């Protein structure tokens, strides 16, 4: 029972965090056709910016300023980088963002050093929120939950209730039509790219301190975000949301399960000392998202909510 409660709590938080990243990636991809390989690098930038800002001011200022800065960086990258390679097709754009991920990591290493920085959670939130089954649950994680839900509502409001959102939605479904409506398409692209990056940055701000803020955080997060987008169905925000939660929950549930293959597949006579029999579900946790990806590709290539086959 306690395993379930813990896995549920941690899974939802992690899942929402994944959604903060994957929603930006989905927005950018479905509008511009650009698969932003450097998306997780903006997540990393968010954490580092927040570390710097909260060092000289407070965490609360960083919470607002850092994502905005990351968004601005994103907009600059779109305006002076991506736009130039746009003519060479999507693969060239993907390569550009791939190189960008490299660059950001190296610049971060130069500016902040190769090892982790001491980005701490604010003292105000550094207390146990409640205790269940003997383990206390940190208040900061509850705070993360609220931020993530807040962002979710904000995104929903932006897309459904504002004029900008309507244009974005129109652009999502009919990318070629928006230009005819007299809207400045390059400006829309730049804005969407910036907003997507800012959301990744916000995720970095709130996750950098409970995980580790080091130059490897982008590389570790990147592939999982891609998995989320493919599993959810490319271009579908709802799909990305479901896939994020699904992967967050699966990974956290897996950690909590000690059963080994030998115990699960006892009927096959698998020996618990054999290499396969010895594998426990909890040790499978890091592989789960990728396993899910491959299974999805084989059995349901369009993803959870995708409209078409990839």
């Amino acid at each position, binding site marked *: 029972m306690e395993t379930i409660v*813990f896995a549920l709590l941690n899974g939802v938080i992690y899942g929402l965090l994944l959604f903060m990243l994957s929603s930006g990636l989905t927005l950018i991809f479905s509008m511009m056709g650009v698969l932003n390989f450097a998306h997780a690098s903006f997540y990393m930038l968010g954490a580092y910016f927040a570390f710097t800002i909260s060092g000289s001011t407070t965490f609360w200022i960083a919470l607002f300023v850092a994502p905005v800065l990351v968004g601005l960086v994103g907009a600059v990258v779109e305006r002076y980088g991506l736009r130039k390679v746009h003519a060479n097709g999507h693969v060239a754009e993907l390569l550009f963002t791939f190189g960008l991920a490299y660059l950001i990591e190296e610049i971060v290493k130069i500016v902040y050093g190769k090892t982790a920085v001491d980005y701490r959670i604010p003292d105000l939130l550094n207390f146990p929120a409640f*205790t269940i089954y003997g383990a206390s*649950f940190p208040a900061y994680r509850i705070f993360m939950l609220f931020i993530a839900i807040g962002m979710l509502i904000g995104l929903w409001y932006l897309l459904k209730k504002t004029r900008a959102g309507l244009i974005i939605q129109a652009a999502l479904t009919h990318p070629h039509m928006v230009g005819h409506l007299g809207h400045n398409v390059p400006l829309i692209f730049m804005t969407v790219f910036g907003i997507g990056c800012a959301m990744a940055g916000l995720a970095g701000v709130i996750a950098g301190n409970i995980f*580790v803020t080091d130059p490897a955080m982008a590389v570790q997060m990147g592939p999982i975000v891609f998995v989320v987008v493919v599993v959810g169905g490319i271009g579908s925000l709802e799909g990305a949301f479901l896939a994020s939660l699904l992967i967050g929950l699966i990974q956290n549930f897996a*950690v*909590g399960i000690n059963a080994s293959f030998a115990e699960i597949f006892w009927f096959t006579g698998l020996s618990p000392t054999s290499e396969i029999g010895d594998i426990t579900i*909890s*040790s499978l946790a*890091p592989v789960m998202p990728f396993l899910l990806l491959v299974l999805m590709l084989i059995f349901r290539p369009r993803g959870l909510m995708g409209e078409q086959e990839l």
Partner: protein
Amino acid sequence: MSIKTAALAAAVSAVAVTAAQAEIKMAFIDPLSGPFGPSGEAAYTSYLLEAERINEAGGVNGEMIELTGYDNKVNPKESLVQLQKAIDSGARYIFQGNGSSVAAAIIDAVNKHNKRNPGDEVLFFNYAAVTPAFTNESCSFWHFRFDAHADMKMAAITDYIRSQDDIKKVYLIGQDYIFGQAVAAAAESQLTEKRPDIEIVGNELHPLGKVKDFTPYIQKIISSGADAVITGNWGADMQLLMKAAAESGSDIPYMTFYGGSLGAVSALGEGAMDLLYQVSEGITNLEASDEQYELIETYKERFPEYDYYYHRAHVAMRMFKEAAEKAGSVDPIAVAYALEGMVHQDAYGPVTMRAEDHQAQQNLYISTVSDDVKYGVDNIELGWKVVEGGEIDASVAEQPTTCEMERPEKP
């Protein structure tokens, strides 16, 4: 960061100044970046300081030591690339410690190199890779270990647990590679032998250096009802484990190999007292000579970011010097023979380099965190203090060896 590295730069330049007359090239191959970067750097600084002191005192047989650091990112293959580079640049003495997988690869590569390039031999001084096999079935003449291996450290821990009657359930957590597996196996077999009534309620191996949030593991430990946790974790895996334990309000004692790793104590804070235990070959707060205190203080002054932790790095350097002087040569084979069976009078008791397996035998100390100490760690007031009954004599920790060593011809 800037304070730390300024001092490091000073050390680098101090060693570099002597480079003009350098004769003995040594290579330090360990992580200098990434999650285990601080572990490597903490040891590197100790070596640099000791090399500098030896050079100031006239060097080894009048020759100066030049030590170069190589970053291997705790990756065995990268280590071999760096090892090749080091050998190509003339290094004949290799120091490495972080990661038994790396040490295994280096032992293998050094064996091959020495076989294929007679007259060009290389020695490997292992200061922290403690998988027992290196001085047992896979022992090598070219390998010397200055740290107690996992079975020895576990013997010290289990010896202590033997007297702790309130520990009934033990949880094992470790890194998923040869070292972590060796620790778990040693804990299981030694506990069943010394305390058959203890129940092992969990035996968890997690990926090395990849887990960013240990909270789910800690929650699992708490719900298992364990009375104590035994872990061989080191580097970031140790620090993050403690961070998660502190966040979850865990009050279970942790018996660790590397609780002294950077940042583990400060992660727990006051909560570490009587909860975090470590086994080591010496701690700064032990009664020692003024000379030793002076070394500790010099180190802290030079490298304020780190604590004096890698005492064995100094021991390894000094034993090399003694052996080279005894042999009257810095030729690796001669030095190796001189090291065999050598007894070094150290600040924390004698260190014997056992000839049959090249495993150093030394006293071990179980310590816990206390606020009543001479030297704190992590730049806070808390520091390590030996627990009652925590002085484990070298003979208690000594383990038999299965090593059948092949020796080259004596020069």
